[in-house]
């Protein structure tokens, strides 16, 4: 058949099948490699076509457009078959995007197209199946209720209810229809006229005039096929077979079946008969499994069928063009946080606890500036508080506490009996200096008037205020003491009221000295207190 112009053949099939408005036409040709075996050569699909959204019955129209559409569809189906075949051979049933793709995918097919597709997988040896028997008998066969037929008679009992076969060239033409059509010689005539209108080179004489002999013989039980076909006795079948001549006969297989077979597919798969049959059955089964394997209807139950989503929260997916939901940086927000931010939270906690641990060790070593400031305050404090000799900070704080307590007692006693006192005396207790050493504040006990010495130092400028009982040479002694501490006095104010000397000396420490306010105060106390 290689020499045959497939395109012309397909056109002829198309014309024939469309003229009678049937579903498909197939030409089974005798295989060049396996003599006597009929294999798929070409076909034309004229049935329903499913698009994604709608199932539309193809208009029966002989116009060129429609013709082209049908031819195209047939071609697509063939491509799909070949794709499936490749897929099966490589034992893949997953998508293979790297391979050239068929325009159709399995889910695009109607049931009729499935049938057509499945037919492509068949081959028939002489006498086998309807095409094989037709070839063997070289007659025309008309099979009604093919979907109910026994598998030996008609293996593909899936959809086609009416099938007609007749020899043509080196092969068999098969026409099929999904509805039951009673045998009609006019149909056969019409089809043959279209297909044979160009006289074939090799002629298998089929006298059309004999067609008139064809009758519907429901009641005649005559079956010379029984010799080669055993059929299932469970099915009530009657075969009508009129066999005029092996060469020039019209054969009618008529099939009345009162018991329907509910599961055509499984019936087909299950019914093996002899080696030849089971080979084909295996093949058929293999194809079907390949195609149907793991589809949702078999695996997940019927509710998974595309159009049957009852009882599920999901609806059929449909394309809608709302564009991408682009939320830019917010894309995968929580997922990214889980992967990137949550681990950081753990890490931060680790870092935080480390810092916490270190802080415990660090408490004694504060910032340098803080240390300086604190030490400075301590030195100021020590200059104010009478020391018991120890110089460490704890002792100093103890001294300060003691001293404050003493002062509080003094304040109390003073407040209780201070009426007789001169205003001025209490005035001298004020802290007059801004930031620096205030002085021993409340001196004045009546009986033992203690001295009041204030030393305030700002940088190297030191101001000394002394208030004490006047005596001879006291100013000289004070100034001597100060000069012995490397203080250069540049301003001295003094006054004496009621025997009390008030002395204010402003001086500057010489650069070489390290005298502190405390040392100065102690030195002056010694001077003033000499007398006592």
């Amino acid at each position: 058949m290689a020499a045959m112009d497939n395109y012309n053949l397909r056109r002829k099939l198309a014309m024939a099948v469309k003229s009678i408005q049937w579903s498909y036409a197939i030409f089974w040709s005798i295989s060049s490699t396996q003599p006597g075996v009929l294999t798929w050569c070409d076909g034309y699909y004229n049935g329903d076509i499913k698009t994604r959204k709608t199932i539309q019955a193809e208009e029966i129209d002989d116009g060129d457009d429609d013709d082209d559409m049908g031819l195209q569809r047939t071609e697509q189906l063939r491509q799909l078959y070949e794709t499936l075949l490749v897929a099966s051979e490589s034992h893949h049933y997953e998508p293979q995007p790297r391979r050239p793709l068929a325009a159709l995918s399995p889910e695009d097919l109607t049931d009729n197209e499935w049938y057509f597709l499945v037919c492509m997988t068949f081959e028939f040896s002489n006498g086998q199946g309807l095409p094989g028997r037709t070839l063997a008998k070289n007659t025309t066969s008309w099979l009604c209720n093919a979907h109910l037929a026994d598998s030996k008679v008609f293996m593909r009992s899936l959809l086609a209810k009416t099938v007609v076969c007749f020899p043509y060239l080196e092969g068999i033409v098969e026409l099929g229809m999904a509805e039951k059509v009673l045998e009609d010689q006019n149909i056969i005539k019409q089809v043959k006229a279209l297909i044979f209108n160009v006289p074939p080179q090799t002629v298998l004489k089929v006298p059309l005039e004999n067609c008139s002999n064809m009758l519907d013989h429901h009641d005649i039980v005559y079956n010379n096929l029984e010799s080669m076909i055993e059929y299932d006795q469970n099915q009530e079948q009657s075969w009508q077979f009129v066999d005029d001549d092996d060469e020039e006969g019209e054969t009618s297989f008529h099939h009345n079946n009162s018991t329907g077979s509910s599961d055509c597919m499984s019936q087909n798969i299950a019914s093996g008969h002899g080696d030849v049959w089971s080979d084909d059955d295996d093949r058929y089964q293999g194809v079907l499994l390949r195609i149907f394997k793991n589809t949702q209807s078999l695996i997940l139950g019927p509710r998974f069928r595309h159009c049957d989503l009852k009882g599920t929260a999901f609806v059929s997916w449909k394309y809608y063009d709302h564009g991408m939901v682009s939320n830019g940086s917010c894309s995968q927000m929580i997922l990214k946080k889980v992967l990137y931010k949550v681990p950081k939270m753990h890490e931060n906690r680790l870092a935080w606890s480390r810092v916490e641990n270190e802080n415990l060790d660090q408490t004694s070593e504060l910032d340098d500036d803080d240390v300086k400031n604190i030490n400075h305050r301590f030195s100021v404090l020590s200059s104010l508080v009478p020391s018991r000799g120890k110089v460490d900070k704890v002792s100093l704080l103890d001294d300060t506490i003691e001293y404050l307590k003493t002062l509080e007692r003094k304040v109390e006693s003073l407040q209780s009996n201070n009426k007789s006192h001169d205003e001025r005396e209490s005035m001298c207790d004020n802290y007059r200096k801004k930031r620096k050493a205030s002085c021993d504040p409340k001196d004045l006990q009546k009986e033992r008037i203690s001295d009041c010495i204030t030393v305030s130092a700002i940088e190297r400028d030191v101001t000394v205020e002394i208030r004490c009982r006047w005596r001879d040479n006291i100013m000289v002694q004070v100034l001597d003491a100060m000069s012995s501490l490397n203080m250069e006095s540049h301003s001295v104010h003094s006054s004496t009221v009621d025997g009390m000397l008030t002395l204010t000396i402003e001086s500057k420490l010489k650069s070489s000295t390290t005298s502190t306010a405390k040392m100065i105060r102690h030195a002056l106390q010694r001077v003033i207190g000499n007398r006592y």
Partner: protein
Amino acid sequence: MDSSTLESQIRSDNFVTYESPYTLYSMAISSHRQIAVGSFIEEYANRVDILTFDEQTLTLKPNPNLSFDHPYPPTKLMFHPNPGDILASSGDFLRLYTLRENSTQPISVLNNSKSSDFCAPLTSFDWNQLEPRRIGTSSIDTTCTIWDVEKGVVETQLIAHDKEVHDIAWGEAGVFASVSADGSVRVFDLRDKEHSTIIYESPQPDTPLLRLAWNKQDLRYMATILMDSNKIVILDIRSPTLPVAELERHKGSVNAIAWAPVSCQHICSGGDDSQALIWELPTVAGPNGIDPMSMYTAGAEINQVQWSAAMPDWIGIAFANKMQLLKV
């Protein structure tokens, strides 16, 4: 509102909603119809709530007695494959809890670092169904750790990737795969720890791969998702480097994927477009790519999808502060 959303919300007999006080991320379904949901709060105090699902009345009943505090948000929750009353969580450590009648007791806190009290944070883990004493964890320190949780010891620790490991999934008892910020999917066999097989690398170098799902029904296939991508990449371990399919019908980035527990051909995905899509991997891909079979539209970005063998008829999703079980 999208008509499909309306439709699915009217038909309330096929889904059930749990509303939490917190944003939810992690989720696990047990064989006892218990569902664990982990909060996502960006601070220390987080919570794992245990719900009981009643299919007859279509209710999700919280069990306050079983709920417990969790330090930081769990990055993943998973029940013991069998019998399912032990719950594991990942985060700062791998933690195991046992769910009793009236309380949840911590069993163990597994730390793989011998030198310190701190374990590198875990991004995910997977419980080996065939060998339930094994749990594999993935960490930002580029390693995967295989635990023997019965003994509470580290079986092995592998430097799996060049960057953070984002997810791990078991294939067989001794074979696991992981995805990483380095953009690769690698398969490891515990019998040969020295080597790993790279079976996929993201097309733009260094596009991180975020999650991984291994088809437990057909171990030839696994699926992964990329950062800032609406694609689900389906891989066949027999044909490394080239994905067998890329599912790209989401209108936003994909956040979660889950293979069907009883079918080798179906996978569910959830994305920023608020949609959960069920895909059927076809025999042959059409030229225009693969369309999903069905869809569900949620009220917000879907962050989690769980499809458990314990309840194959129900898909769990988490979005915002809600968890829903959707009838398949």
